[in-house]
């Protein structure tokens, strides 16, 4: 935050300097981190290739549990993506200024997370090499895709989501790129000037710009809700007890924002430390964002309760026995761990002190990430493991391909993010300036 007495120009140039420092030549540790992430990424990719060559069977999925870790990862990453849009778009509409320090990296997170998520539907296909059959184009026999299938909805939702959030991210960045351009030289200058589209900051550019940003935010908000609703409907549209329940859409949306916000914390807190951004990203900001965490956690908790309460209220044999299974069955430990991570721990944020205790928030955010991953896993797997016909009951235990590919996905995500921190401004300069000026 700008100290009162400081001159605007001075503040702005300091800000710019700080951001540029962050983009200076990386520390060896950075390279190490990058290398580790990248190699995980490669490992995951290799595993995928092996799986394609040998067959799905090398993974642990089976009959009846046809969806396992891959779909869990998909939902998890799409979820991560969400808070990016929430923070940048929704909070923008609500004129919540504290977003300005988060939104750039949050949006970056969104884009990368969607890219990562986008891989999983392909990975889990029995015939990954035919993934393009899912796209809306007519095949040789003039047959289109089945627009009734939730999976096709996914294709539309996720691709739209990616496009819009990419545009949103880029548009927000253009003025900042223009600033970076100013401080760079040589080929880098060329690149930055190209991507800043010859930005000058003239009124003509600004007045349309502000509108555009508003509209994009206005689009992104319902979009983000629709996307995770669609993801949730992948399950809710089925008739499997534990999947087929109406509250899934809001439940998943809240969950997504919940996990996403946690991921923002997981990323921002170290970043703030490493790049010495304490000046700009203050404790108040964390206080505010952890309120979002708390709020979404409340919604999630509400959904948990309603799900179970109504299962017992309805007294329908399949529903009831399924939820009992979830509580006490093969996956009970995961379930209770999930409750701990998603409900009990976040509720500590009612305590104002903890909301402002950054190390605590960091640890908590990690727990929440784990918890939300488990939530998806438990929902997906336990519901399939025991459905209608007792003869078909079985259980699912992941095997090495799932593990490696999941690690790979984290590798991919963090590789991208690390690169981002070095080549792009990690704070939204313009917006911070604007805020400071008021």
């Amino acid at each position: 935050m700008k100290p009162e007495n400081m001159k605007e120009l001075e503040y702005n140039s300091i800000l710019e300097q700080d951001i540029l420092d962050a983009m200076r030549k990386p520390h060896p540790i950075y390279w190490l981190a990058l290398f580790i992430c990248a190699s995980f990424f490669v490992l995951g990719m290799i595993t995928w290739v092996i799986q394609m060559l040998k067959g799905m069977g090398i993974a642990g999925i089976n009959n009846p549990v046809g969806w396992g870790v891959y779909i869990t990862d998909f939902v998890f990453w799409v979820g991560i993506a969400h808070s990016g849009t929430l923070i940048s778009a929704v909070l923008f509409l609500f004129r919540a200024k504290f977003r300005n320090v988060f939104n750039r990296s949050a949006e970056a997170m969104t884009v990368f997370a969607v890219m990562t998520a986008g891989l999983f539907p392909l990975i889990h296909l029995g015939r990954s090499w035919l993934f393009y059959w899912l796209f809306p184009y007519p095949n040789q026999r003039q047959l289109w895709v089945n627009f009734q299938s939730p999976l096709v909805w996914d294709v539309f939702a996720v691709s739209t989501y990616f496009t819009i959030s990419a545009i949103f991210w880029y548009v927000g960045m253009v003025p900042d790129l223009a600033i970076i351009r100013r401080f760079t030289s040589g080929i880098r200058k060329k690149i930055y000037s190209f991507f800043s589209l010859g930005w000058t900051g003239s009124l003509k550019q600004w007045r349309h710009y502000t509108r555009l940003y508003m509209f994009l935010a206005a689009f992104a908000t319902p979009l983000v809700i629709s996307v995770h609703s669609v993801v949730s409907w992948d399950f809710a549209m089925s008739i499997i007890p534990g999947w087929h329940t109406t509250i899934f859409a809001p439940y998943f949306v809240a969950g997504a924002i919940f996990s996403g916000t946690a991921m923002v914390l997981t990323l921002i807190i170290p970043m703030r430390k490493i790049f010495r951004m304490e000046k700009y990203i203050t404790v108040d900001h964390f206080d505010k964002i952890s309120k979002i965490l708390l709020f979404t956690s409340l919604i999630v908790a509400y959904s948990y309760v309603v799900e179970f309460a109504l299962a017992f209220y309805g007294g329908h044999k399949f529903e009831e026995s399924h939820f009992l299974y979830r509580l006490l069955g093969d996956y009970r430990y995961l379930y209770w761990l999930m409750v701990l991570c998603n409900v009990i721990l976040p509720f500590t944020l009612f305590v104002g002190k903890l909301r402002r205790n950054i190390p605590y928030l960091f640890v908590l955010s990690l727990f929440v990430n784990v918890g939300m991953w488990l939530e998806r896993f438990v929902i997906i797997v336990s519901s399939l493991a025991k459905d209608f016909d007792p003869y078909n009951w079985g259980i699912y235990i992941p095997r090495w391909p799932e593990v490696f590919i999941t690690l790979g996905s984290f590798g991919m995500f963090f590789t991208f993010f690390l690169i981002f921190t070095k080549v792009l401004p990690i704070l939204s300069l313009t917006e911070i300036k604007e805020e400071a000026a008021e």
Partner: protein
Amino acid sequence: MNLSYRNLAIVSIVVIVIIGLIETVVKIGGDGNLLLLLSFWSALIQGPVAVAAAAEVSRGKWAQPMKRELLAFYPLILFVALLFLFISFQMDIYKWTEIQHRWLNKSFFISRNFVLLLLSFFVAHLFARASLQQKKSSQLVAVLYLFVFVISQSLIAVDWIMSLEYPWMSTMFPAIYFMESFYVGLAILALMAVVTLRQKLGNKVEVKKVMRDAALFMFGFALAWAGLYYGQFLVIWYGNIPWETSFFGIRMEYSPFKEMMTLIIVILFIVPFVGLISRKAKESIAVVSFVSILVLIGLLIERLFYILPVLPLNAFWLVIEFILMSAIFWLFFKNREQVLRIDK
């Protein structure tokens, strides 16, 4: 007409007695009357308070100027609670009473709902006091009230309405229900802003701002409402499991329910969405008040839509009961200073 706090109390007790008599002594065939009355007004009464609480929690400037107006209705929660007791005389409207189980059994049904309403009244009272006195604790109490609000509205949804068609159930139902209550809360906020503007009370700019914000939120809620409603419908439609589709089955096959359905969607979604999309509209008194009133009507129709297919209603007595309720409602609004006096 201006009444002292005591007189207000007396009037409301009288009204309770009258309605009670109508329900117990008179009632010709209108099994659903009381349920409709309660399910509609409870939303109308708990909603505004919840809006106030939300404003408190978010420290948002947006509703502060109208806080007193919003809080004026909290005593009516007690009113609803008392009226609810009359339901115990007509439990036979619920088919599940034939075979009762651990959750759905008469005594537990009455007690839990009554207690919860009382609780929400009590918390509302605390909140009103704390917030009017700008106590530190006001935020905390506000959160507390929101909890109670969500729980009691959800319970109302499940117990009062959903159990009419046991074993039909939808996990989305309670969520829709309390968010609708919040939705009408906003509508009432907007209306009160309009009224104050008409009466040239308060700071014009601020109040106008309140109205615009209320309109903005209504716009948002219209979208959200549509989302939830569609979400619930789609899942049931797609799943196509007989015991689940039955609910929408009857409501979409026969008149007047199917017309009602369309009407609800038009009123609670399309009108607010189209009407309030532009900034100008959000600022025009006419539009906002029109939309807000529609939303209230929409809610009424929606409640009808739930109850009518199951229970017969008696129009005449229903009208009378509604007139009485609106009168009380208006009285409390009118004499808000009296109501809120004790909180000073």
